[in-house]
């Protein structure tokens, strides 16, 4: 791996609700090198978004990071004072959310919003700020950027709005961008444009990227490494192609088999039975066991971490046939 940027150890983020403690993130560990693109994949409720929010210190009550460590460029982020966190957020760690219609302020021009982001971290003159904003918009593929600064978000299409959100994230040349389902709301032709641009931008600027998505195919075309989450845990990780070619964890296998693109047209898909368990009442041991074709008696106990060079899986039966 290239020089280490982020090291997450045994991160636990819980939501203390009236119905009980929801362990949305339960013992997540991973490392990320500078300039590396990490794909974080899982279904709804797997904890992938909460992991992203935890990294950037945006977990709202009743959620709380209850344990573990997030070391960013040698600095511990868990327990960092809010003012310190604000200094990092937007400057060295930025985030892009799923729905740009909801994250951009509808009553401010794009230019004003970008200026606010510039000035939040020092900034300099207004003129320099506008220049920076226009240059960044050009980088993300918005034509005639200087003129578009005076436009309002509703004057942009969905794809263009997401480009604006990406431009805001890029403004300060952050070391890390966390992108939470940034292309899910977009059409496939626009998604392809943004994927191609993101990959290039990350490579050019040396920005590390955590790309959170439910879509294995999108992630596989973009990321260097893959993390698969289930019920708040990372159940498998490794280089993208290696994991997808021969997944160790039966859940990863099941996700792949669920894709119509992996089957012959009209053929029955090899589906995963059942549905994701409620985080309030997880089964003992491996949370995937009730849906798992490989499950045995031993799966009622906590699964071991099985490692291979560059790879890891959380499973009692990881090394069994993966076909």
């Amino acid at each position, binding site marked *: 791996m290239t020089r280490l940027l982020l090291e997450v150890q045994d991160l636990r983020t819980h939501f203390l609700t009236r119905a009980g403690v929801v362990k949305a993130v339960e013992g997540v560990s991973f490392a990320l090198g500078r300039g590396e693109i990490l794909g974080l994949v899982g*279904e709804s409720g797997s904890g992938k978004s909460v992991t992203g929010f935890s990294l950037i210190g945006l977990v709202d009550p009743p959620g709380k990071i209850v344990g573990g460590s997030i070391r960013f460029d040698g600095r511990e982020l868990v327990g960092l004072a809010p003012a310190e966190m604000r200094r990092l957020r937007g400057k060295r760690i930025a985030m892009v959310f799923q729905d740009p219609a909801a994250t951009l302020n509808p009553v401010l021009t794009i230019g004003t919003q970008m200026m606010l982001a510039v000035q939040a971290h020092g900034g300099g003159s207004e003129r320099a700020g506008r220049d920076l904003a226009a240059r960044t918009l050009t980088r993300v593929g918005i034509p005639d950027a200087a003129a578009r600064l005076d436009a309002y978000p509703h004057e942009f299409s969905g794809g263009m709005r997401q480009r604006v959100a990406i431009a805001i994230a890029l403004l300060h040349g952050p070391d890390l961008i966390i992108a939470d389902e940034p292309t899910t709301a977009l059409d*496939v032709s626009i998604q392809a444009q943004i994927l191609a641009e993101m990959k290039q931008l990350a490579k050019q600027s040396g920005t590390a990227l955590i790309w959170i998505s439910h879509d294995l195919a999108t992630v596989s*075309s973009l990321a260097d490494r893959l993390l698969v989450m289930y019920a708040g845990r990372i159940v498998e990780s490794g280089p993208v192609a290696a994991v997808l070619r021969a997944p160790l964890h039966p859940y990863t296998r099941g996700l792949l088999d*669920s894709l*119509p693109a992996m089957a012959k047209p009209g053929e029955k*898909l090899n589906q*995963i039975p059942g549905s994701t368990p409620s985080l309030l009442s997880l089964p003992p041991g491996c949370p995937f066991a009730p849906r798992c074709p490989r499950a045995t008696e031993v799966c009622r106990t906590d699964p071991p971490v099985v490692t291979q060079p560059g790879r890891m899986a959380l499973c009692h039966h990881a090394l069994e046939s993966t076909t």
Partner: protein
Amino acid sequence: MSAILSAEHVTRRFSPRITLGDRIAAALGAKVDRRPVQAVTDVSLEVRQGETLGLVGESGCGKSTLGRMLAGILAPSEGEVLLSGTAPMRGKHKTTTRIQTVFQDPFASLNPRMRIGETIAEGPITHGLVTRARAPEMVAEWLRRVGLDPAFATRFPHQFSGGQRQRVAIARALAMQPEVLVCDEPVASLDVSIQAQILNLFLELRQDLGLTCLFISHDLSVVRHVSDRVAVMYLGRIVEMGEAARVYAAPRHPYTQGLLHSVPKLVLDSNAALEFRPITGELPSPLSPPPGCAFHPRCPKATELCRGERPPLSPREDGTLVACHHA
């Protein structure tokens, strides 16, 4: 195979409703846009007995509007929809039970105040397909067939997950014993593993019941998986239509080609570079479609001809219909 359902030169326009506020604004000199949106323009197609026709396109291309006209729940502005030779609608009202629809969002399409047993039984009782006394039995049977516990009949929609609700929506549609099922993005809001379950259920029921289907989706791989034939829409018109295997293996229209190239594929080889050839530009507004071929501003093959003259949807030697001057 004969056509069971067809659209003949159907067009659908939506006019903006002029509100009192708009009138006042207009009186004060503000510009109020009253241009109608033409969602579907001059589309002809047929759905053949027993086949599944896939309808793909990006948001705003008119696929759902076309689907709703074919389902008999939206009247065309021009042209006609025929189900075995007769219109499925009179005025604004649907007059047949032979077509049923499964909608995208099972959170919005099920009445939250009705127990799902009542939801499934309501249509068949109203149309005399089952007596009130026999209805619970029928409901139990349908719940079983869609993979739910018959005891769930007394539950409300909020007690179910998204996947389970979509099973209920399928049961409700099929309990009407339709010949044609229109599915509008039935798996779009579901997680991958649940999507696979619903697709399997769809394939199984389609075969068991000999259903004819119109399957609308923005997801090209889902459409490929379930369809015999496929129609690709762009800005209200069909640009390519033919056997699914052929269209996917050798797309002819530059838009179909671009769309297929835009789909992220699973990269199983770490040396394979990201190979997108995305379509450039954005969808034009349906309020002011470009002249000539609507795709020409984004098309790599566009020439003067494309800017001036709209290419007709015409058959090629293998039977595929393509609307392009250069394909």
